[in-house]
């Protein structure tokens, strides 16, 4: 079956993205495919390239990146939710005169249409809520 996973929580603040990541691995292990992982609300902070994990802690953005490389996953963060929360591309950084970009390269910023599209083409949509 085709799954879409929706993540509302930020790493280091909520368990939601950790649960989502474990669930994604279990979905793939059972032979299903993942159509998209969509990051919304505070979940967009998973796409930040600037967070730095404490030495003995898991660094979730890297986990997502590894998962993407190994399974060619589509990792999309909602652009509206992202720019409000400071996750921005180089072109937004330039346009709004910010000091730099902050989007990890394995993630793509796109509109909420990508969430609707995912719902249309997935057999299952599982949300990991937070807050």
């Amino acid at each position, binding site marked *: 079956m085709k799954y879409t996973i929706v993540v509302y929580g930020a790493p280091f603040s909520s368990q939601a993205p950790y649960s989502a990541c474990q669930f994604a691995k279990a979905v793939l292990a059972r032979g299903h495919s993942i159509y998209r992982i969509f990051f919304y609300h505070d979940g967009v902070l998973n796409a930040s390239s600037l967070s730095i994990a404490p030495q003995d802690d898991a660094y979730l953005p890297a986990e997502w990146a590894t998962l993407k490389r190994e399974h060619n996953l589509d990792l999309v963060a909602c652009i*509206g939710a992202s720019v409000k929360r400071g996750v921005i591309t180089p072109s937004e950084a330039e346009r709004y005169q910010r000091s730099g970009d902050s989007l990890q390269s394995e993630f793509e910023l796109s509109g*909420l249409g990508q*969430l609707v599209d995912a719902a249309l083409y997935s057999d299952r*949509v599982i949300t990991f809520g937070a807050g």
Partner: protein
Amino acid sequence: MSETGKKRLLYLITRPPFGDAYGAEGLDAVLAAAVFDQDVEVIFLEEGVFQLSKNIDPAPIAMKNHAKGFKALPIYGVEKIFVSMEALDKFALSTDDLSMPVEALEIDAIKEKMATADHIFSF
């Protein structure tokens, strides 16, 4: 899937306005679905009914009034908008107290909508 071949997408709005971003971001998610011309339904549950309070005015708290966007949903083609009758009852409200005309649903009718949706999003 509905008879028309469209997907049935159900959106539950469960939180009051302003305390967090779920109301505003839930609204944006519904608006995005409206663009795709699917079978979209919205149910306001529990404290979510306060998103439809009359006289919402966040100027004193220096926040943006997203809630008027809910009133505009029919303009964007989202016509199936419901509230939980139990929630209204719990908060001593009637549909007349709300900012837009909506149909109140009993628990069983809400269950039925959940049981027949293709996907359920909660905010």
